[in-house]
């Protein structure tokens, strides 16, 4: 389920100049009665090992949360998904295709070298390499975008066209700034070592066991805790037990049921974090398959009871969503409605009244949401005469069959798409031209790609006419059907630590306010 692939395109800049006030974390600014005393060790039971450490190449949410603890991006999202300063203390948009960022003077890598404009320029040159652009590059305009240094603390991006996704994309884990001087000199391998400007630095790491992070002495945003120990605990029950017996202080959960499971543990603060990520049912419409016929896909889209998925599979924790994640304030509501009669007649029209297909889904230890969603789909499609065979696959096999093979070796899969900090960013996943990973299952539709590109370039608020047209076309195409948002649950021992957990996140970063994490009693451990 750890899938977070995205597409980019051109977009129009959000006009406006935000002068950056450095966001110093308010220690103890959230929940927990006790006052935090800075210092101490906090233990975070992490649900999955971070295995894709090189930020530009990393497409796994389970790596992003750690990357965002070690590195900083130019800009960040606040709790309402507004773009706010980070390494860039301010920026200007002299024209809709031009961004000029001034860097913080106090940003220093954890080995002591101050951040320079060269680091930023070189970081993005890696993304925008015309030979081999990263998957992320399309969000910032692709290889036609140029990045240059104006002086040691000023960097300029020039885009070929306006982009609605550019600025929020810069807040993503993939866009964090690397110490390019060391990397280019060959002294640092970003795929195995992590060296950033973030609040913590890596002291030690045992694969699949634990990370030990300590405070980055040079951090411009110094964390409250001295140490952050991160045991890797894929098993839900062990995380629950460890929270209960105090061997960990904080943990993240993919299970919407986590609040229920944790309800018996005293002194536990449990926060459901809404995420822009959302679950989808991806139909493989490439090749000789019933799904090549749009009527069959629309029938499936009308047959699925998404409200039941929300209620049962998500335990009421998320929301039914359209192409623009319902987690975004002011999102475009989904145009899809459950209509079994229409579904049946579409199937009959298409000549597949008794359609039968297989949904493959992955399952990491204890992650049961994909299975639950699949089973609800199974139930609701049974009502329109469609038989769904559900098959749970090992993650590697699933990846190969669904995302690597062209054409994809599947009928359909339940997965989730990362939607990031910009409402329109996830749209690119419906265009194989913009999102190469989709080429194995997503029908090529130049018209749709055109609509998405227009939406990305249109000016106005979130709900531009262009965005609405694109969203509706995507939902009518029904090649990949948006289902429900994907909430995350974070729980921490309020008697032992103070933490600030944001209620809404766009970059798969449950520990977004990691610098606010602190032991309540120093020397308590």
């Amino acid at each position: 389920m750890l899938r977070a692939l995205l597409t980019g395109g051109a977009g129009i800049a959000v006009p406006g100049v935000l002068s950056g006030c450095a966001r110093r974390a308010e220690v103890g600014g959230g929940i927990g009665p006790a006052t935090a005393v800075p210092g101490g060790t906090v233990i975070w039971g992490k649900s999955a090992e971070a295995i894709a450490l090189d930020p530009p190449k990393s497409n796994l949410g389970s790596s992003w949360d750690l990357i965002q603890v070690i590195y900083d991006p130019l800009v960040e999202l606040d709790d309402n998904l507004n773009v706010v300063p980070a390494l860039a203390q301010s920026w200007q948009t002299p024209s809709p295709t031009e961004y000029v960022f001034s860097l913080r003077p106090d940003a220093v890598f954890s080995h002591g070298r101050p951040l320079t404009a060269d680091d930023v320029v070189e970081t993005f040159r890696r993304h925008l390499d015309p030979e081999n652009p990263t998957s992320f590059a399309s969000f910032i305009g692709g290889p036609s975008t140029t990045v240059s240094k104006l002086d040691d603390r000023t960097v300029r991006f020039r885009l070929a066209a306006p982009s609605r996704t550019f600025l929020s994309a810069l807040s993503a884990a993939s866009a964090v700034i690397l110490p390019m001087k060391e990397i280019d000199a060959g002294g640092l391998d970003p795929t195995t070592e992590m060296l950033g400007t973030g609040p913590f630095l890596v002291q030690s790491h045992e694969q699949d066991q634990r990370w030990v992070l300590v405070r980055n002495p040079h951090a411009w945003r110094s964390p409250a805790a001295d140490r952050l120990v991160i045991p890797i605990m894929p098993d839900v029950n062990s995380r629950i037990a460890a929270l209960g017996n105090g061997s960990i202080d904080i943990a993240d959960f993919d299970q919407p049921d986590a609040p229920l499971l944790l309800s018996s543990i005293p002194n536990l603060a449990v926060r459901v974090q809404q995420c822009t990520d959302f679950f989808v049912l991806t139909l493989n419409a490439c090749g000789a398959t019933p799904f090549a016929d749009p009527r069959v896909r629309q029938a499936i889209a009308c047959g699925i009871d998404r409200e039941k998925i929300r209620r049962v599979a998500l335990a009421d924790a998320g929301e039914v969503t359209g192409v623009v994640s319902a987690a975004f304030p002011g999102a475009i509501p989904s145009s899809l409605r459950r209509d079994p009669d229409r579904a049946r007649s579409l199937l009959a029209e298409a000549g597949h009244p008794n359609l039968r297909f297989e949904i493959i889904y992955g399952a990491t230890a204890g992650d049961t949401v994909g299975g639950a969603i699949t089973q609800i789909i199974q139930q609701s499609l049974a009502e329109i005469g469609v038989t769904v065979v559900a098959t749970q696959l090992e993650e590697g096999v699933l990846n190969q069959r669904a995302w690597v093979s062209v054409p994809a070796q599947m009928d359909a899969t339940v997965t989730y798409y990362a939607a990031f900090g910009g409402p329109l960013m996830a749209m690119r996943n419906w265009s194989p031209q913009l999102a190469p990973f989709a080429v194995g299952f997503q029908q090529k539709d130049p018209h749709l790609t055109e609509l998405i590109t227009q939406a990305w370039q249109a000016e106005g608020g979130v709900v531009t006419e262009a965005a609405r047209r694109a969203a509706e076309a995507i939902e009518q195409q029904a090649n990949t059907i948006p289902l429900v948002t994907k909430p995350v649950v974070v729980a921490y021992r309020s008697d032992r630590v103070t933490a600030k957990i944001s209620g809404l996140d766009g970059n798969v970063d449950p520990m977004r306010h990691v610098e606010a994490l602190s032991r309540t009693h120093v020397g308590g451990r």
Partner: protein
Amino acid sequence: MTDSSTTGAPAAARPARSAPRSLRIPFRGDPLGWLGLLLLVLLVGVGILHPLLPLGDPLASVGPRVAGPSARFLLGTDELGRSLLPRVASAIGVTIVLSAIAVLVATVVGVAIGCCAAYASRRVDQLITRVTDVLFSFPTILIAVLVSVVLGPGRPAAIVAIVAVTLPTMIRVARAEALRIVELDFVTSAEVAGARLGWIVRRHLLPNMREAVIVQCTYSISLGMLVEGGISFLGLGVQAPDTSLGALVGAGRLYLTVAPSYLLIPGFVLGLAVLAFNLVGDSLRAQRREQ
């Protein structure tokens, strides 16, 4: 000690021992054996006849999520609000039937290989024995997981996994029995009279191996149910929305603190089924030893 053979005294004059046609009167004076048999009949009955019983629909989401036992849902509900009573009942059937089918296959193959080993040249026999030993020394669940990864998850994988796990023991038992029987005088007599391999296997080996093989089957089925449990627990066996006892235990594990019955009841039933087969197996074995 005089012999009455020449007189051909009527059979009634002799204490008429029942013909040892194996398992005709099982478990005489063996309450544990009876208990096992009773449990078995009960479990198999419920597992197979559950669609006819008024237990509810095992697939419909009709209740609250993850609720403990109540008057309406006697065993509670699962994470999709499905009643656990019919789900456990159908899981019993799936678990026992899968295991039984697999053990049937393992028995046919194992007996065939065992008979061949007994009749093959010593080199071939030793090869079979070594391969069996190697297979036997693999951790059970590793074989099972390997099989389901290679074949893809699902019932066939579960069956093949159980076959892979139970086959070595079956070959051992069959081979040992075949070797023992081949040495018996009546087989030599048949050979001298012109019997060929097929005849001997059919007439002499199979009927005389039967009991040992049946006893082994009962143990294999209980092992098979545990294997099925293991791989379904890992999500590699029976696929949703169908379920097996192992799959239920795997799913219920998450809710141990909230609705312990979700894990404990299928776990208990699985234990009961294993126990039933083992009790029956023990009884059959004890009875065989007596004969």
